[in-house]
């Protein structure tokens, strides 16, 4: 019935122009650099105590008001000369600044990671449900998320935090999560809505896949870079909000966090007194954290959205 003209050619892999390989976009400079810096900051928790005594971060552990070792002389009458045991100086409560950094940084990071983590989990669940199931489920979730987005988060957080007598890392993180979930929910919902119409989703239904299967095995894997970018963005947002609340004095008091350190500095008029080594280091650390998270977010964005990679298609 049919005639065949098939030369015995060696089947060579046919590739089309603009081949995108999975590994290439992940190795982009922004993501790698940001990740490197972030991991370095994370490692402070483990590496720090190996070189420095963290107990020096407690009140009264060191002589007060000494200047950092590279400062010549003494800038004012209330300060003491540099002490080689405390290279970054000490503050008015007798905390060694280097120890403070080593202790406070991981705690602030923890608030960010846990808060963003919980927020993302809620966001993924609600976003997928709203996107895939549609109907009234979608209406309820979307309306709720929209309302939450419009409420001024920081103000409410301040109120909530002031009601809790003893704020700790965990409670701080969960309070932040309250306002971290709406945006990821909206973003994930819209991604799911657009992916729902793809050919391979139809094929999956035809192959007998259940809605859960489609959610986790078909859609989710393709959303990974997007979810990762949302996560790093959320971590930055949570740390920022938490620091804001802490700077007002509403954070954990016993063991310092970066925000609380700034708060302490403010209450002791460190700015007026010119004690830059008190409020400076936490701010520098926060800037480093934010920049690394930002780089990671836009790096992941490039993975998620090929059009951002500079290859015009």
């Amino acid at each position, binding site marked *: 019935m049919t005639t065949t003209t098939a030369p015995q050619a060696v089947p060579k892999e046919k*590739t089309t122009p603009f081949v995108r390989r999975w590994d290439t976009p992940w190795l982009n400079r922004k993501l790698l650099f940001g990740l490197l810096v972030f991991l370095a900051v994370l490692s402070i928790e483990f590496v720090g105590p190996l070189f420095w005594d963290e107990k020096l971060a407690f009140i009264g552990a060191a002589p007060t008001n000494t200047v950092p070792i590279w400062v010549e002389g003494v800038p004012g009458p209330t300060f003491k000369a540099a002490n080689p045991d405390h290279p970054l100086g000490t503050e008015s409560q007798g905390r060694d600044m280097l120890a403070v950094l080593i202790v406070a940084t991981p705690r602030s990071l923890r608030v960010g990671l846990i808060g963003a983590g919980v927020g993302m989990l809620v966001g993924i669940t609600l976003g997928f449900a709203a996107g895939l199931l549609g109907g009234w489920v979608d209406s309820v979730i979307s309306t709720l998320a929209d309302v939450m987005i419009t409420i001024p988060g920081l103000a409410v957080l301040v109120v909530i935090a002031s009601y809790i007598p003893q704020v700790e890392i965990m409670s701080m993180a969960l309070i932040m999560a309250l306002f971290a979930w709406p945006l990821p929910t909206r973003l994930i919902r819209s991604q799911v809505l657009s992916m729902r119409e793809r050919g391979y989703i139809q094929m999956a239904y035809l192959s007998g896949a259940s809605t859960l299967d489609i959610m986790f095995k078909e859609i989710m894997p393709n959303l990974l870079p997007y979810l990762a970018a949302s996560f790093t963005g959320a971590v930055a947002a949570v740390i920022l909000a938490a620091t804001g609340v802490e700077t007002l004095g509403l954070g954990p008091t016993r063991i310092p966090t970066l925000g609380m350190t700034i708060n302490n500095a403010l209450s002791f008029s460190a700015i007026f007194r010119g004690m830059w080594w008190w409020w400076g280091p936490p701010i520098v650390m926060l800037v480093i954290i934010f920049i690394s998270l930002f780089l990671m977010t836009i790096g992941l964005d490039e993975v998620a959205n090929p059009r951002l990679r500079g290859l015009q298609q």
Partner: protein
Amino acid sequence: MSDTHDVLPVNQPETREVALEVKDLRVHYETPQGDVIAVNGISFEVYQGELIGLVGESGCGKTTTAMAILRLIQAPGRIVGGQTIIGGEIDLLSLNSQELRDVRWKEVALIPQGAMNSLNPVMRVHKQIADAINRHEGKQSKKASEERILKLFNMVGLPSRIYNMYPHELSGGMKQRVCIAMAIALNPTLIIADEPTSALDVIVQRIVAQTLLDIKERLGASMILIGHDIGLMAQLVDRIAVMYAGSIVEIAPVRTALTDPLHPYTQLLIESIPSIKERKPLKITEGLTHDLRNPPPGCVFQLRCPQVTEACREVVPPLQELKPDHQVACHLYDGQAILQPVSLSGSYLES
């Protein structure tokens, strides 16, 4: 074009003027894994007043060629060599951007692929055409502009009542004809139409195709029609050029190409056309192609050619004129290129 300066072929079509001459055009696309050779040194001529079809399957480089002629290639693509000479004088590839802007649309116009979907959805159709005119000829008076646009509509068979409409209010065929009107607004000498009817239904396709032919006649312009539907080409074009993987493999008058195709790929393409006139057994072929970044030495078609020889795997066959106006790039015809004047009996011609 292959060096025919030492050739005196018989029955040469009367020396027609050349509207566009493409010489050794090369376009590469950069990828992280190396350059993809999209257009591999093609050369051809478009004569004044003719309609030449550029046909090939997806990925063969025909759209890239059209874009390259108008220097519309964007990163990661780049033109790495060749010349595109209009009217025997201006090499488009050597102009600076100001000169290029003057020439584009006035001398050479393009109806790009999917043009009907690229109309600005928030602008009325008359304004879109007026914009094109104003940008090249300066602001026109409202009355002159309206007259001119209505005349254009008339030329492409559009009713005047659509003057103030938005693109979404028009049907597919009408939108495409608006794009054609835009392309001919400045009376270009060369029009390049890239798949102008691909998205249209059969009957609408016929109407738009008729329109294209019509305006070409009326303007006395030359036209390059790019597509993959050989049936459509048969209805419209004078000559046809067949492209495969970035190279031109055959150029011939359309009648000859259909009845007596010389290149194995052209033969394959013609045989694959399902007939609407008689039922016959399907002709099947394998579809393996090479990696466009790493083409094998020799002929681009070697992996699929049923008549491949050793020479094909080593030497790239040049595009040679075998019969008057019929060029083929294939080793099967080595030694048969027209080399000397022959008697009218055409005794040297073998098929």
